[in-house]
């Protein structure tokens, strides 16, 4: 990358910079005219010096008044022209700057993708984010200004100065007499500011690094009660930043002080010298007025130039400091990463390592003198104690770390020279801890199949226009023009013919790692859009029908209370009973029902409002009775109480006022609070006696009114329970159940899910449910999955792309013993005839492999078939016995 920001600017935006400079130059004649005109207005039109009226302009005779107005009209025109130039130049330089910023960020990000692995041990995530995100941001602004500001403002300055010189040389000299002083002092002061600026950048990076570390290590902070220490160190860092920033302010304002003072010396001379000359009659008043006006305008560009100078220094430092970090030796060549090969041939050759050696940055030897051959199609286990170098060997074979010495070839070619499009498609690697992207499970699973856009997305009308605009801009900034919304999935690579078949295959692969049940559960908990997936919705409805028939069995019937429009559901909340559906959006959210005017109206019509208020009073008084003497923050509040500890006294006050003066004494907001409580009641669970049969009858009436009179604008705010329709707001499981799990029956949830599973299997729905489960969002870095699930998913992802070479590095260590063995056998069977290299955490697992490499102290000490090596006194035997 260019070491100097100007080189970078010229390389990528030379044309734009020339255009913007030309625009500036083109504006100068108008600018000059703009300063010249007032003089004419005062001297010729108003004072009528050297002018005899009527005058002839372009063949038209004008009186003095006409002449004045013509000149003023001209003046107005010039104002417009000058502002139009300014506007055009500003927009254009903004565009240029933004494009360059986009390019710079893209370049830096791409560099991150090409960094050799060890770089990330020196450069933290926080620092990289800080640099790409925050530090380069002001550079965009500067790049737009880089040439246009000196050209435009410098030119403006010269024009105005030229104008003043033309009027009176002495005045002109007086106006700029202190400029040389500024020229001398300012850079000296600026150098100080620059030094602090550098320091500030460094400190800010450290800060974001620290924040990143805290976020990822927050568990340790809690475990060791280290919050106080963390706060102290953070405060120290903030203090250092404060100091530096404050110093920058100090010097910046010193510079500003000097500039402003000097600038105001100009008028001093104008008034004194100019006034003297006018009184003496050696200068016309109009000229002095124009010069004073011009001088005022002289200050603006001069100021702009000085601040440009400051900004330039700032930008230069930032650019250099960022580039320095991103200029990493041994970075991957761009072509090796992105150039699409003509064909991607299967990797058929053998791995050959001779005297392979790996050192870390400090020169510490991790692997030494490893020589071996791995034939294509062989299943090879690498075993060894911790620190034996087996994991480093696996990393080298997966090409994730470069070798420090010796040679490592695949099919006779140096492994490091193979292009990534080849290795990334024909090889796979799973380490002990795998990373997932924050996306649905399916996208994570297909991640290894997306190398290039294969089927273009279809756009229409507005969408097409915006896509094309996006494309043009991407091109103008030298960014990727690939469409992330295209279909990138390489179905052929997975051995299937399309999306549907791939779902089936994905489920098959997930079963290999014992994850099918997890995905099934995700599916049951998931929701679908019935419009987008009418087939699944129809089949779930079928399952609902089948499940409802299962309720003929009294045992199952006791587990569920089905939704019945004519009956009150004791296992649902009062809110659910009223809506007889689920809220969509916030309109009818449970906590907002008591303030919703429509709900209040319905309650009133159904004569339920006072009853509800009474129920609310009952709930409140029970809560006060039960929880009043518990300590604040007691976990019972969180788990059982309807009212938080801090609110209890308020309710207590309300209750005693009702006791004295009746409910009429409640203020409207108190009514709302009391009314909100019973909406959460579930009679079968809470057993508070607040809901009797009369209440239920009236609530059923309210339910009817609510549905019948629902205003059209609330139509989409409730997803109603309807036996014949899929409910888009409910999960698949709740759609099948079409009711509430009953409180009471022991192990009810377990028995319900068994009954559902029976129905699902009888209707052959399991795969459809799992397909929905593939849409489960895994959360940030897969945070919504357990570490075992993440690991299983990572293995499945690598198997799905059918690699010729699969390298696993203690990939199953977190799995429990049973599924570990099963998963290994299934993966080995699946990859029969393909190369598998597996660094194992337990040596005894190596029995299932064709060959074993035994490592100790960074060297391969034994290699051969398991049976050959498993003999008295061998390292392998020792390892197995030590388990």
């Amino acid at each position, binding site marked *: 990358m260019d070491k100097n920001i100007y080189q970078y600017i010229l390389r990528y935006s030379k044309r734009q910079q020339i255009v913007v400079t030309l625009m500036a130059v083109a504006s100068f004649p108008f600018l000059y005219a703009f300063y010249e005109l007032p003089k004419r207005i005062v001297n010729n039109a108003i004072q009528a010096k050297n002018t005899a009226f009527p005058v002839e302009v372009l063949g038209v005779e004008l009186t003095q008044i006409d002449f004045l107005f013509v000149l003023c009209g001209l003046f107005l025109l010039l104002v417009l022209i000058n502002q139009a130039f300014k506007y055009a130049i500003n927009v254009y330089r903004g565009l240029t700057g933004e494009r360059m910023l986009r390019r710079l960020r893209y370049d830096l990000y791409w560099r991150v993708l090409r960094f050799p692995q060890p770089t990330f041990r020196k450069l933290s995530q926080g620092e990289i984010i800080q640099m790409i995100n925050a530090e380069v941001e002001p550079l965009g602004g500067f790049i737009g200004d880089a040439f246009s500001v000196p050209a435009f403002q410098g030119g403006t300055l010269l024009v105005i100065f030229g104008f003043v010189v033309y009027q009176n040389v002495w005045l002109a000299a007086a106006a700029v007499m202190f400029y040389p002083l500024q020229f001398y002092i300012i850079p000296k002061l600026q150098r100080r500011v620059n030094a602090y600026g550098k320091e500030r950048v460094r400190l800010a990076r450290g800060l974001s690094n620290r924040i990143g570390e805290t976020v990822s290590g927050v568990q340790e902070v809690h475990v060791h009660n280290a919050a106080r220490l963390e706060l102290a160190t953070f405060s120290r860092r903030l203090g250092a930043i404060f100091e530096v920033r404050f110093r920058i302010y100090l010097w910046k304002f010193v510079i500003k002080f000097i500039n402003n003072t000097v600038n105001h010396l100009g008028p001093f001379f104008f008034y004194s010298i100019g006034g003297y000359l006018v009184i003496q009659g050696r200068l016309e008043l109009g000229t002095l007025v124009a010069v004073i006006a011009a001088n005022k305008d002289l200050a603006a560009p001069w100021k702009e130039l000085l601040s440009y100078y400051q900004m330039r220094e700032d930008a230069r430092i930032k650019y250099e400091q960022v580039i320095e970090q991103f200029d990493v030796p041994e970075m991957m060549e761009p072509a090796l990463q992105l150039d699409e090969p003509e064909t991607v041939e299967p990797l058929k050759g053998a791995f050959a390592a001779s005297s392979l050696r790996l050192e870390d940055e400090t020169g510490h030897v991790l692997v030494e003198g490893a020589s071996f051959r791995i034939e294509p199609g062989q299943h090879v286990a690498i075993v060894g104690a911790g620190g034996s170098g087996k994991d480093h060997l696996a990393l080298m074979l997966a090409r994730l770390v470069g070798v420090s010495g010796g040679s490592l070839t695949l099919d006779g070619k140096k492994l490091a020279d193979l292009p990534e499009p080849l290795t990334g498609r024909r090889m796979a690697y799973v380490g002990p801890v795998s990373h997932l992207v924050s996306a649905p499970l399916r996208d994570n699973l297909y991640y290894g199949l997306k190398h290039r856009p294969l089927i273009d997305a279809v756009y229409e009308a507005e969408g097409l226009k915006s896509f094309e605009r996006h494309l043009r801009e991407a091109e103008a900034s030298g960014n990727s023009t690939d469409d992330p919304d295209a279909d990138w999935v390489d179905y052929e690579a997975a051995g299937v013919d399309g999306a549907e078949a791939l779902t089936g295959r994905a489920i098959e692969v997930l079963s290999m790692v014992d994850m099918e049940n997890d995905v099934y559960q995700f599916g049951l908990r998931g929701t679908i859009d019935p419009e987008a997936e009418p087939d699944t919705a129809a089949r779930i409805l079928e399952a609902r029908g089948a499940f409802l028939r299962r309720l003929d069995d009294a045992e199952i019937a006791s587990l569920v*209370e089905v939704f019945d429009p004519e009956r009150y559901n*004791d*296992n649902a909340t009062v809110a659910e009973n009223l809506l007889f559906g689920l809220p969509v959006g916030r309109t009818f959210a449970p906590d907002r029902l008591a303030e919703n005017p429509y709900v209040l109206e319905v309650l009133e019509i159904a004569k339920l409002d006072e009853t509800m208020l009474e129920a609310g009073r009952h709930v409140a008084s*029970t809560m006060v009775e039960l929880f009043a003497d518990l300590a604040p923050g007691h976990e019972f509040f969180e788990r059982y109480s309807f009212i938080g500890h801090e609110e209890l006294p308020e309710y207590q006050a309300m209750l005693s006022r009702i006791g004295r003066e009746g409910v009429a004494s409640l203020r409207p907001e108190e009514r709302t609070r009391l009314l909100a409580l019973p909406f959460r009641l579930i009679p079968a669970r809470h*057993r508070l*006696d607040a809901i009797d049969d009369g209440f239920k009858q009236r609530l059923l009436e309210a339910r009817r009114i609510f549905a019948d009179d629902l205003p059209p604008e609330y139509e989409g705010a409730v997803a109603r329970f309807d036996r014949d329709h899929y409910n888009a707001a409910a999960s698949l499981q709740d759609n099948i159940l079409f009711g509430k799990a*009953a409180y*009471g*029956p022991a192990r009810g949830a377990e028995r319900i899910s068994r009954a559902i599973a029976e129905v699902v299997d009888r209707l052959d729905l399991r795969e459809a449910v799992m397909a929905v489960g593939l849409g489960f969002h895994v959360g940030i870095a897969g945070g919504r999955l357990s570490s075992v699930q993440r690991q299983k998913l990572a293995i499945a992802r690598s198997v799905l792309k059918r690699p010729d070479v699969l390298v696993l590095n203690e990939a199953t260590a977190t799995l429990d013993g049973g599924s570990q063995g099963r998963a290994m056998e299934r993966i080995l069977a699946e990859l029969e005839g393909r190369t598998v290299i597996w660094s194992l955490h337990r040596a005894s697992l190596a029995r299932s492999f064709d060959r074993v490499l035994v490592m100790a102290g960074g060297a391969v000490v034994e290699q051969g078939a398991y049976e050959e090596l498993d003999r008295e006194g061998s390292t392998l035997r020792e390892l197995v016995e030590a388990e």
Partner: protein
Amino acid sequence: MPGGREVAVSLKEEVDLLRNIPLFSKVDPSKLKLLAFASERLTFAPGQELFRQGDSGDAAYIVIAGEAEVLVDAPGGPVAVARVGKNDLVGEIAILCDVPRTATVKALSNVVTLAISKDLFFQMVSEYPQFAIEVMRELAERLDRTTGQLREAVSAKARS
């Protein structure tokens, strides 16, 4: 009839019930109400096990209605050693001293229980000394009874 309805016992009734159990008889009614409110009411069908010998215990059960038998594994299969019914407390040993269930309890009829989770039980013990004392007293009485039975058994053996 969907579950849970036929036994719509109210909180108040549960509190009355709890007060009839010796262990809780001297505990302040408002605490019993909290205990009842925070506990889940679970029903068991005839033949269903409340818990099984050897499992780890997570709750104690107060029988509100119905009858269940207590079975102990013996070489020849499970042997019924006792019956429990309304107002009886079962399963408290496993949650008090963290041992596996010492017996199996199986419902003979429809059994309605109040399940007091281990967490809740300990919360109550640590929160309310009065409650803890009652638990201690109950346990001490049981120990005294068992010791008495042992003494009788030993002296009977000595006589024979």
